[in-house]
């Protein structure tokens, strides 16, 4: 936030006139925004088109002609009728593991982050080190070993092992750790102890009520990670009806006549680009919702504090 003042000053100085450097900056940023936005916008609009009219619309892909809600409705019907409505099951499975994993991540990460930041205990440095190490390692690295572990206990095809594994979220611990380190004054903890609160109660009564920012960030990052996770459900949920929507989307792609005419020939429901685009758009709605909800917390720079340590 300290940047706000300097930013405001420089802005004040620059906003009076258009210099070449300012035009160059605004131009470059706008051009980049255009490159980022066009694929997404045209892709989402694709869900409002008819597959046999895509090539025929005057003006092609950028044209607004050929878009209609009826098309979207028809495309939705096709997606929902695929394999007797399995798309809804996929969405449901994704919501279960996504929300379950996120709740578990929040419930475990906040107390652990608090303890690492504010309490002295044996093994604190070691736990902090292991947390950091597991945080910076890609979560796909253990997927095959996790498969071996889960299959050893007979948990393949069940949702709960996926939730438990997704609940392990060291980055959430680190976010909470930084949050409590930077926002919770030592004196407040000391005072609560003087009042006779146990360590756990100090956390519940004093630390937790002021951790909205940390909760929002953990929810956001963990939910997005869970929702978009592909490799873990792929190996732990092998049957189609057990799968999440990430696996489902791959299945939709794989059975589209666009990419596999032979397999799709036998299917009663045929998905073309408009239906695939609509299914993808539906799939990203939960992530966008969480993103917009967490947007003000994200941009506050706490993420950066987290990395900065």
């Amino acid at each position, binding site marked *: 936030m300290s940047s*706000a003042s300097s930013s405001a000053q420089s802005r004040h100085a620059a906003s009076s006139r258009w210099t070449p450097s300012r035009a160059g900056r605004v131009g470059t*940023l706008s051009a980049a925004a255009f490159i980022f936005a066009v694929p997404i916008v045209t892709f989402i609009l694709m869900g409002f088109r008819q597959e046999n009219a895509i090539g025929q619309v005057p003006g092609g892909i950028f044209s607004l002609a050929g878009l209609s809600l009826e098309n979207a409705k028809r495309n939705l019907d096709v997606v929902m009728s695929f394999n007797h409505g399995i798309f809804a099951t996929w969405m449901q499975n994704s919501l279960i593991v996504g929300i379950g994993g996120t709740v578990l991540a929040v419930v475990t990460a906040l107390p652990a982050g608090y*303890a690492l930041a504010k309490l002295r205990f044996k093994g604190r440095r070691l736990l902090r080190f292991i947390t950091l190490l597991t945080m910076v390692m890609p979560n796909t690295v253990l997927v095959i070993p996790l498969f071996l572990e889960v299959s050893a206990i007979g948990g393949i095809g069940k949702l709960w092992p996926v939730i438990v594994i997704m609940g392990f979220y060291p980055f959430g611990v680190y976010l909470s750790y930084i949050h409590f380190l930077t926002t919770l004054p030592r004196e407040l903890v000391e005072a609560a102890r003087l009042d006779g*609160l146990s360590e756990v109660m100090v956390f519940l009564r004093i630390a937790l009520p002021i951790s909205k920012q940390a909760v929002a960030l953990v929810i956001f990052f963990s939910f997005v990670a869970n929702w978009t996770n592909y490799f873990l459900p792929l190996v732990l949920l092998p049957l189609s009806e057990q799968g999440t929507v990430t696996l489902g989307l791959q299945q939709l792609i794989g059975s589209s006549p666009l990419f596999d005419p032979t397999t799709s020939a036998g299917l009663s429901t045929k998905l073309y680009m408009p239906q695939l685009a609509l299914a993808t758009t539906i799939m990203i709605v939960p992530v966008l919702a969480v993103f917009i909800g967490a947007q003000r917390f994200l941009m506050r720079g706490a993420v950066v504090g987290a990395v900065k340590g």
Partner: protein
Amino acid sequence: MTATTLGEPAIVSTTPRRRRIGLPGAESRGAAILVLPFVLLLIVAGLIPTAYALIQSLQTVQGFGLDNFVRIISDFRFVDTFVHIFITLLVWLPIMMVGVVGLSLLVYSSPGRFGSTMRFIYYIPGALAGVANFMLWLFILNPGQSPVDFLWNGFGYTTLNQVAQPGQLPVILAAMLFFQGAGTWLVIVNGGLNGIPDEVLEAAVVDGAGPVAMAWMIMLPIIRPWLGYMLLLNVAYGFQLFIEPQVMSQVTHGQISPQWSPNQLSYTYAYQILDTGAAAAMSVILLLISLGLGLWIVLRSGLFADER
């Protein structure tokens, strides 16, 4: 334990003494309860699978040995998978680093509504990580319906297989990964820039530094640890590539090898060859690479120094 409620005067006077002299264990016990749930998950989802992978990878019919490692390394695709990753990293990382740093500096010098709108737009593709991002890129790469169809026409491409030729996959992956990840890293690098004290920047202006000198000589050195972090984390991510080449192989009917990346080869051993020993050996190799990069980030980047 001090299971007393707020406002009990008798306890107020005794507790501090007990804390400091009498019961140094109370803090430890409280901490143990608070970290326990996380530690349990760490054991179940982190330590046990790691140990399991190690044991599996070393287990052979005669006892323990390196047979599994020999088998996976001598697979005719083993070297190729790593070569693919190296080439992809060579294309992707420079684009990522230059793109993110450049956009970050420009966004940083665009405060107010315009800058934050730009940052928001760059961030949106992050919502489409993984398969959704891949689907979007299929739409871009598939001639005929693509918004950049003019580009494919220019190259003379009319089918997806012409666009997604094996030699072009690193470039395609680089574009996909940049599109998906740039916004997130931009937020992080931007935050690093925001952390630069005003006095430093003002002093530079007084010394007559122009915008370019300012960026090159003041800002870049200060945010260098973040850039190192970003570089190493992206390298680690690159070695883990799975879904993009996997689905690409599917939609191109095997024009892209189903064993294109190390993780795909490991997956093939686990599921098609049903050789869990070799699959575990590949996991251990990837784990060691990640571990090496991870240790480097944690111990050497200077980002995670202990505060106490």
